[in-house]
């Protein structure tokens, strides 16, 4: 899942990003509203964690523009203003969820996951494909009842492939959705991670390589 964290307090933004990355999400951080808009114009994020009081372009304005554009990014608004009126106002601007500060980090993760699930088409809480099952919120994956020990990136790859169903997913798409902007576009990271994931999944293979660099889940 690709997440943009737009928060002007740097310590908070970096802590959130570190925590979310550990949950297997691909996270980019911006510290002001203007760079948030730039990032949103280039990358299709699944979820935007948006501080309402952003310098540069205000969080409300970003939310309004995203809604006007019909963006598929889900917006989770963070704010220190927590009266009912503020929450209603925030949701009225097109935010999909609203979390008042200070929040519990576990709740933030759960809400981001819930929002990611809602991206079209909506996904079940536990993803399944063949004899592989994966629970994003508990961060566990099983093959035929055997628990798989996966790194965050391997987990992210498997999660994305399972969510895609029988659709063929390109390596570029995987790089964009599972890695953050720090990833080099010419890297072989996808290939290498895919190889390690296949080893961990074991036989018989469940991930098919389609010609011209695509991947698909399902028996060979």
């Amino acid at each position, binding site marked *: 899942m690709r997440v943009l964290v737009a928060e002007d307090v740097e310590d*908070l933004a970096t802590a959130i990003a570190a925590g979310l990355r550990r949950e297997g999400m691909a996270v980019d951080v911006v510290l002001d509203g203007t760079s948030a808009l730039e990032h949103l114009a280039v990358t299709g994020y699944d979820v935007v964690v948006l501080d309402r009081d952003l310098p540069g372009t205000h969080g409300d304005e970003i939310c309004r523009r995203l809604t006007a554009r019909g963006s598929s990014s889900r917006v989770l608004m963070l704010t*220190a203003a927590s009266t009912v009126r503020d929450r209603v106002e925030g949701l009225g601007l097109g935010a999909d969820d609203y979390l008042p500060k200070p929040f519990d980090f576990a709740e933030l993760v759960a809400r981001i996951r819930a929002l990611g699930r809602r991206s079209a088409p909506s996904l079940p809480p536990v993803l399944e494909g063949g004899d592989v099952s994966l629970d994003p919120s508990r961060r566990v994956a099983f093959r035929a009842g055997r628990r798989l020990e996966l790194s965050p990136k391997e987990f992210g790859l498997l999660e994305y492939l399972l969510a895609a169903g029988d659709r063929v997913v390109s390596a570029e798409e995987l790089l964009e959705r599972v890695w953050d902007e720090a990833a080099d576009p010419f890297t072989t990271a996808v290939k290498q991670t895919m190889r390690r994931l296949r080893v961990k999944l074991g036989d018989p293979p469940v991930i098919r390589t389609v010609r011209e660099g695509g991947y698909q889940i399902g028996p060979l």
Partner: protein
Amino acid sequence: MRHSRVAATALRLPRRTLRAQLALLYAALFGLAVAVVAAFGVIFKPDFLVRAGCTADPRTPSPPGACGQSGLSFAGTITHDVQQHLAGVALIAVLAVLALGLGWLIAGRVLRPLRTITASARDISAGNLDQRLAISGPDDEFRQLGDTLDGLFGRLEASFGAQRHFVANASHELRTPLTAEKTVLQVALADPDATAATLRSACEKALEWNERQGRLVDALLTLASSERGIERWEPFDLAGIARNVIREQQPDAGRRALRIDAALAAAPTAGDPALAESLIANLVGNAIRHNQDGGHVAITTAVTDGRSAITVSNSGPLIPPDEVDRLFQPFQRLGSERLRAASGHGLGLAIVSTIADVHAAALTASARPEGGLDVTVRFPPQEPPPS
């Protein structure tokens, strides 16, 4: 005794509406006018003086012949007079009722703008403070009342707005450090690969934010106590206080390699020495914090034109001249500044402004063309004013 109390109660009891009072007043005035006219009519009746001659005052009897002349027809005249008087009284009663009714109508008409003002004012005070009465028409008493109320609503709205703004800002400034602290700690603790080093760095970060919160709470309390005003006026010297403040803040300046130039001539004045120290400490602290490495701070105390004054100037980032006033509002920062654990709490200059206010001291501030700020506080020249 009892009688007078009953009378007093009777006078106080009929607390009617203004309209009823005006109507009654009209009727009473009308009644009075009629009574006066009637009295004149009776007094100037041709035979009144003649009859008065024999009946008016028994102590000065008139000559015997004077009464005897009209004595024969006296009984008939009385009957005629009674009839006439009865008709007159009935007429007066009818007219009085009519006057009361007319008075009621007229009072209602005259007071209609007042009712409109009351209804609108009630509506505005119920929660639409952004609306105004905006009474139009001639510059009469109602217009003046409306304009006065509009002025009052304007000040109330500004005051409530400032209050709301302050609370919103304060909640942001208080909750943000809490959030940063909590998230930093939770993320560090939830890390399965946490090492002593990562946990230590998370704790240090949380402590920084915690110290920031402490400074903010102190500043909020200082602001609240300085808004309360001065309870006890004492004489003090700005130079002495400035010297202490500079000694305390010298290490902060040293860390940023700032040069502090102090020209402290005796500048005696009066007020609350603790608040004055807070004023100077915030001025100097602000000058040190919003400075550039290797910059300078100049602090001058002096008496000019009989007024003791302190001036603090500092180098620093360029401030647009029209932003200067805003910096003295609570929680206002320059546009480029970001909230950090080490950054100021945003109340320093607001505290300076409030303390200057309660001392009736004049505060002037101007942006320096080469960057930085000049702030001067001039204390009033006289002996301590009565509190």
